[in-house]
């Protein structure tokens, strides 16, 4: 890039980053401000909204008992399902493989709000009420493709002859996979699992339909608090989510290729 080009681009680049980051910066600033109105820039520094967050039963329940639990279990389930699917797709040739690959992308192509509505109507016609379980099952649908993506990338970059060598030395196919391939897949597995967690943890569109009164996830609780114009406890809870997700994305960027994940 030559000098002049850069100066022409810079205003646009700054404008876009401002738009992307401003809401996060504002939310974090508001969570430390003393005013109960959403004041920016804040006129002081206080931790009272974080204290209010930990004192609020609905906030604590939605954060720790619902979002965190569902996120971790969904990530674990997605990692198992997704790893198996990725190994099947990369290491074997069979009829309909490409079609199946596209089919496994479907959860990312279908608008989430419509998937949420469709699942709600499906459960309703089976007379199943929204609960922690319905939310968890729904999240596994949209988390798994991220694991498939990262594990596929990990497997494609790996030399299959490593496994063949292990087998020619007497290892069974299963042994060869778990002793040779699996350790080499660790960073892509970790990234896939982390992304699965993030997708579940920040989802709102499915949760709006599928979390019941006893299983309100953090984003859904935030949504209703914003509608009822609550206080900066909203901002404190949001700041916690921003910090957790920021740290996890940083971890993925350090251990794997972040570009592949989105």
């Amino acid at each position, binding site marked *: *890039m030559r000098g*002049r080009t*850069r100066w*022409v*681009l810079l205003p*646009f680049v700054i*404008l*876009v*980053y401002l*738009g*992307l*980051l401003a*809401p*996060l910066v*504002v939310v974090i600033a508001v969570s430390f401000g003393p005013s109960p*109105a*959403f004041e*920016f820039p804040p006129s002081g520094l206080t931790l009272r909204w974080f204290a209010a967050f930990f004192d609020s039963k609905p906030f604590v329940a939605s954060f720790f008992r619902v979002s965190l639990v569902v996120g971790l279990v969904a990530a674990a389930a997605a990692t198992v399902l*997704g790893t*198996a*699917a990725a190994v*099947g797709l990369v290491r*074997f040739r*069979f009829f309909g493989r490409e079609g*199946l690959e596209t*089919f*496994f992308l479907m*959860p990312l*192509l*279908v*608008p*989430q*709000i*419509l998937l949420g*509505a*469709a*699942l*709600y*109507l*499906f459960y309703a*016609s089976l007379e199943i009420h929204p609960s922690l379980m319905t939310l968890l099952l729904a999240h*596994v*649908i949209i988390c798994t493709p991220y694991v498939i993506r990262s594990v596929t990338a990990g497997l494609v970059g790996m030399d299959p002859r490593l496994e063949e060598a292990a087998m020619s030395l007497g290892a069974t*196919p299963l042994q060869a996979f778990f002793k040779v391939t699996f350790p080499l897949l660790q960073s892509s597995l970790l990234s896939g699992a982390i992304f699965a967690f993030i*997708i579940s*943890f920040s989802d*709102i569109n499915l949760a*709006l*339909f599928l979390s019941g009164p006893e299983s309100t996830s*953090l*984003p859904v609780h*935030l949504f209703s608090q914003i509608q009822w114009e609550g206080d900066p406890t909203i*901002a404190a809870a*949001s700041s916690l989510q*921003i910090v957790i*997700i*920021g740290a996890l*994305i940083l971890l993925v*960027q350090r251990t794997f290729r972040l570009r592949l994940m*989105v």
Partner: protein
Amino acid sequence: MGEGSARPVWAFLVSPYALYLLILLIVPFANVALFSIQTYSPTKIILPELTLVNYLKLFDPYYARLFGRTLKLGLITTVICAVLGYPLAYFLARARPRVATIGLFLLIMPLMVSTVIRVFGWIVILGRKGLVNKALMAFGLEPLKLLYNETAVVIGLVNIFMPFMVLPLMASIERIPPSLEEAAQNLGANWYRMFARTILPLSVPGLISGCLLVYSISISAFVTPALMGGRRERMVGQQIYDEVLVSFNWPSASSLALTLVLLTLVLLFAALYATRRASRLETGR
């Protein structure tokens, strides 16, 4: 593993998730399709009498306006994303690795934070006592009503979905060798001419998939219009939410949902096709 084994190992590996999707993705949408051709009843929600009323209703002025507004807001969002996102994509594609790493983190991190939080941030910025109005008042100007209208929805949608424009564009610009730019300029083309003749045409596949991605995601937006939009200027996503959870008109909600999902899938498969075609043209296959 593999080729030699008699048992179809692949089937054990791929079938769990395939079955999962069959039961929790395909069947629910089949159920939606079935609901959409049944009759609404205020007391029983659904009567098992087949009808096309739910689809014919989409041509009523109310629903036609609803779809018209949704498609229009999606289009405005997409155009603004393309105009603002293109320079950023070019900047990142040609940046030094260190800058690109930081730039990518700052692009993807906000994308992964819950939409509801980013919308909340915009509400604080645009609110009556928000950042913008405070600045206006500091200059002695009247505060503006920036929230709860279509402009606010577009501002929200543009900022929330921007990364979906930048990432595919960046990928396609990266594949254009920088030597091409230098060659064009060494042959006497100025920067703008070089850009219009080489970079822009070669990045069209990325631009197309970015636009289709942003458009298809913004026409099914719910959280942004629900929290930042006016009561009278709703989008299809809000209508579906209300008909499912508030007014319990499930047949009508189903016809809306099925129409929107088919529209989205057509657009996204077009985007996939554009990307694959581009990479095929490059590798010469």
